[in-house]
């Protein structure tokens, strides 16, 4: 079988023997630090054999945007999720999203555009060449991953939709169906989940709509069939299971911002200088690492995106 460029990249990024040994080291230091029996807190290696899923996308375009850091193992990316539509524990989405139906699925493009439509997901995805984007993902809870997404730039979809001059923001909506998404039966958040971007953020080449990760179709717990990825913003901006993309004049009322405006801003740009009121954002724990690392402004994408916010007070517009 022909080696595909993205699998090669993966192997280069994460030599498995090294990875396993690093965790052994972790287990020793962790147990030593607590002063308990080595077995009591050994953060032993999780099944890495399962971490090499067979690819389902072919002819992926290689992207210039690729974090050169170790990728977070597939198992971790797909079992540690914040996706309250399937429960509020990190393990809930992987446990509960299995039966979720991602077909048939339509996406409504509406609002201030010249080509509104309700389009079938497969029809929509066929229009754009897919590429792999290896991005850092920084959760607002101060942990992070490196994930090889498969998707296409949102800008391509927007250009095709042909927005009018009134389109200042893009508002995304998750599917609302409590039978399909059991977490929606509890009013933990104001369902359906809504997220939004300013037009220039939405048009930025780093912003993608993802349909896969690790070269395979997006697992349900990661937001299948279609999710947003904005790598310089906190993870909660990456809305999952999108059914509607609306182009609007006014800044949309987004879910977490409505829930706690003092804690989750509309912009939600990764910013080590602006702490969450309840915890510091200066550092983050990269999943799989023991020591916390410094969080970078705009999650390390400042060169590409800082100019979008020139002249803005990012302490106020957090």
């Amino acid at each position, binding site marked *: 079988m022909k080696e595909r460029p993205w699998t090669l990249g993966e192997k280069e990024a994460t030599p498995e023997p090294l990875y396993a040994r690093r965790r052994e080291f972790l287990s020793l230091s*962790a147990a030593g*630090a*607590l002063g*308990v*029996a080595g*077995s*009591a*807190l*050994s*953060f*032993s*290696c*999780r*099944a890495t054999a399962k971490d090499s899923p067979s690819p389902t996308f072919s002819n992926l375009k290689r992207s210039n945007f690729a974090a050169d850091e170790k990728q*977070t193992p597939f*198992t*971790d*990316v797909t*079992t*540690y999720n914040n996706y*309250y539509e399937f429960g*509020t524990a*990190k*393990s809930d989405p992987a446990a509960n999203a299995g039966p979720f139906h991602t077909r048939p699925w339509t996406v409504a493009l509406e609002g201030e555009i010249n080509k509104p439509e309700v389009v079938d997901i497969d029809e929509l995805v066929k229009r754009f060449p897919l590429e792999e984007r290896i991005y850092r993902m920084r959760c607002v*809870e101060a*942990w992070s991953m490196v994930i090889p997404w498969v998707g296409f730039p949102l800008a391509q979809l927007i250009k095709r939709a042909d927005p009018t001059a009134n389109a200042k923001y893009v508002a995304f909506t998750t599917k609302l169906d409590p039978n399909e998404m059991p977490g929606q039966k*509890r009013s*933990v*958040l104001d369902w359906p989940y809504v997220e939004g971007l300013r037009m220039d953020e939405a048009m930025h080449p780093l912003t993608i709509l993802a349909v896969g990760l690790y070269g395979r179709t997006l697992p349900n717990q990661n937001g299948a069939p279609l999710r947003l990825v904005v790598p310089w913003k906190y993870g909660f901006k990456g809305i999952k299971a999108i059914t509607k993309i609306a182009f609007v004049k006014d800044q949309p009322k987004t879910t977490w911002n409505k*829930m*706690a405006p003092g804690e989750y801003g509309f912009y939600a740009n990764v910013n080590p200088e602006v*702490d969450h009121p*309840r*915890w*510091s954002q*200066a*550092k983050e*724990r990269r*999943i*799989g690492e*023991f*020591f*916390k690392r410094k969080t970078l402004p705009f999650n390390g994408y400042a060169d590409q995106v800082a100019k979008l916010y020139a002249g803005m007070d990012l302490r106020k517009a957090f």
Partner: protein
Amino acid sequence: MGRLNAAGSLEAGPAAADPGRAVRRRWLAPIVFLACLLPLAKLALDAAGGNLSANPIAEVMNRLGFWTLTLLLSSLAATPLKTFFGWTAQMRVRRMVGLFAFFYGALHFTTYLALDQAFDLSDIGADLVKRKFITVGFAAFLTLVPLAVTSSDRAVKRLGFRRWKRIHRLVHLAAVLGVVHFVWRVKADYLEPALFAIALAALLLARLAAPRFKRVPKSASGEPKSATQESLSRT
């Protein structure tokens, strides 16, 4: 830990006529002791099997915090169970459960210091000052320290029962701070902290209602109680 196990030996009363009761008395403390170790055993098992999620440090902290609060509230349930139902067996393991709450709290705090923060003192200091959920959590732990230190029979004698009892009323404060710590920690799903808050409110209200609900606890043998026994079965 030997001290924890000593609770059974505090039973100074003569062997009861009911042999089943004697057996229950004998086995209650060891059973509760082992039960209190189960969450730790599960943690060790999951750690060994790599089943502590992708973020093991957070998982360990969450679990230890959960059991700290659970055991702390359990120890607070002892007195209302006696007042309202006349049960007394639980009074003999209350101190052990309270000490286990402290033990899990200490592990929770140590996990934060050692694994989460890797002893970065400036970060820890900033957390303590700026993060109110950490401030109250730390305060809750500090409040438990004098209780753990004065948990021995000798401490009761040395301090005198009244003073000892006054100190140990701090457990109510520790429980309130601990539950507030959990409530303030949560992002959106308040179900679990709310259940703890409701349970704690019920336990505290039960204490307020107790004077109006005078129920003489059943005493099987009716023998006069020693001072130590009295001190252990009240508060």
